[in-house]
């Protein structure tokens, strides 16, 4: 059985993201929205050092059920998830995990449901507060029948003369599930007027994040932190918002603050670790990941990260064993592909280009949509002067991952070299769109413009 924290579980479906009408400004000002492609301005490591997800955000150190990938710009991007093409999002969150969580336990019961909801007299139960609360939790969490739960909560809150904060929070939860965010906001605010609770602040923040108002969410969390100083979950929520807004420096600061309160917080350790890795301090990242290992985290991702950190921190004795362990712990083909991809980098690092070539090929054998591996294979092919192969690989890579600048830039270089200036210019422009501050792209564009002006 899985207990999913109600605050955590929220996976935005494709429909919610692309047909979202809750956000106030469609074209928001910079720094006030979670949805815009934030590739324009970079706080912390640039995409030249740190890989980005398809929404232009740096790769995070930790995935949660809710914040798996930021918001994609188009339908096509939404269907494709950043790490893999296989675990696509649910169409709406109503068809996603909520449903599965609700029905999973019912399916295993041969005699049908434990309580037949349609035959309950809700107003009768609403009069006995103790029973009503338990019943509500059963309906909401187990049966996942939000409509009935809402009805019960409405009756019960009326019965409590609108003075019980608990029922208001439950009403807010129901409204949130139904997608009525303004109503949910009102309920939570009204609950806060009766009683300050950490959960209520978190729910409110979640509502604001869903309405694409990260700054309001942050101020809400700040209010919460005033009432409950150094509360771990609130600090974590603040850090997540900063991270989603691409503000990694302050995210890391909040994660550090969080670690002072709770030094076994996996999310904080992982995020700080990956931040150190991508700011050129693999030794320190290694210490964070080692700490995770000591705490008992034992999975493919961790060993892969340990292997990479060991390699870049020049602790060569541990690299291959770490990667071997990662390969043996991998649970699906995509994870195997990622490990081989990183092993390819180790091979490039020690100059064994044949091994690197094989590693990247193995990546593609395990995950045919691995855009980075296509790009790196193209670079290796170019070293052997196989222009046509390199070209094809780069085109595949660019089609799979239009958000990365590398394939576009490489394609521009290659086309420039063989004299196809028009394609080179087009590709360079795409590269500039993906990574505006890339100096070499700028130089190439400048060169091409001069050339065209001469003609």
């Amino acid at each position, binding site marked *: 059985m*899985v207990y*999913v*924290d109600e605050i*955590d*579980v929220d996976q935005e479906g494709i429909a919610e993201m692309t047909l979202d009408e809750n956000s106030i400004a469609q074209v928001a000002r910079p720094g006030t929205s979670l949805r815009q492609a934030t590739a324009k301005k970079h706080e912390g490591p640039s995409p*030249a*050092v740190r*890989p980005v997800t398809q929404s232009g955000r740096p*790769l*995070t*150190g*930790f*995935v*949660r*059920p809710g914040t798996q990938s930021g918001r994609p710009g188009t339908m096509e991007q939404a269907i494709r998830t950043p*790490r893999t093409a296989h675990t696509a999002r649910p169409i709406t969150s109503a068809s996603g*995990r909520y449903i*599965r969580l609700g029905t*999973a336990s019912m399916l295993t019961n041969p005699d049908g449901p434990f309580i037949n909801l349609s035959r309950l007299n809700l107003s009768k139960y609403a009069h006995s507060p103790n029973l009503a609360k338990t019943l509500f939790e059963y309906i909401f969490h187990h049966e996942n029948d939000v409509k009935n739960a809402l009805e019960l909560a409405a009756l019960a809150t009326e019965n409590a003369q609108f003075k019980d904060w608990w029922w208001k929070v439950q009403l807010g939860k129901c409204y949130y599930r139904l997608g009525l965010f303004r109503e949910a906001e009102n309920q939570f605010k009204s609950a806060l007027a009766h009683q300050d609770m950490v959960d209520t602040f978190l729910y409110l923040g979640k509502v604001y994040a869903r309405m694409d108002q990260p700054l309001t969410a942050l101020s809400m969390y700040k209010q919460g932190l005033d009432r409950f100083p150094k509360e771990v979950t609130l600090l974590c929520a603040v850090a997540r918002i900063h991270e989603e807004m691409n503000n990694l420096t302050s995210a890391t600061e909040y994660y550090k603050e969080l670690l002072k309160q709770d030094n076994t917080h*996996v*999310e904080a350790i*992982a995020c700080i*670790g*990956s931040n150190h*890795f*991508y700011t050129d301090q693999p030794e320190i*990242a290694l210490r964070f990941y080692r700490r*995770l290992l000591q705490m008992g*985290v034992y*999975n*493919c*991702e*961790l060993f*892969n*990260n340990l292997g*990479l950190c060991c390699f*870049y921190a020049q602790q060569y004795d541990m690299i291959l064993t770490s990667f071997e362990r990662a390969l043996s712990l991998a649970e699906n083909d995509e*994870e195997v592909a*990622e490990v081989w*991809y*990183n092993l390819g*980098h180790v091979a*490039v690092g020690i100059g064994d280009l044949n091994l690197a070539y094989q590693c990247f090929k193995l990546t593609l054998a395990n995950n045919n949509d691995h*855009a*980075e*591996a296509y*790009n*790196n294979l*193209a*670079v290796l092919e*170019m070293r052997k002067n196989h222009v046509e192969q390199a070209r094809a690989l780069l085109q595949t890579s660019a089609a799979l991952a239009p958000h*990365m600048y*590398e394939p576009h*830039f*490489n394609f521009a*270089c*290659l086309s420039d070299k063989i004299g196809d200036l028009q394609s080179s210019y087009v590709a360079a422009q795409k590269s500039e769109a993906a990574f505006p501050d890339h100096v*070499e792209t700028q*130089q*190439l564009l400048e060169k091409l413009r001069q050339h065209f002006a001469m003609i």
Partner: protein
Amino acid sequence: MPEVKSMFREVLPKQGQLCVEDVPTMVMCKPKLLPLKSVTLTKLEKMQRDAQETIKQQEMVQSSQDETQP
């Protein structure tokens, strides 16, 4: 002062690499640290996988029954 200056003479190398031109080279994608998964997510994914397995097995059984019946 002029005496001190004369102590250092300009040295111009006559052979070997005299200057390095910055040639744009192709760039590789960077190594990827894998994001760790929260315990909840791992469990949810496991549930999803198990459910898929069960459905697959049920379908297998069904199809084998369909084959034997007619």
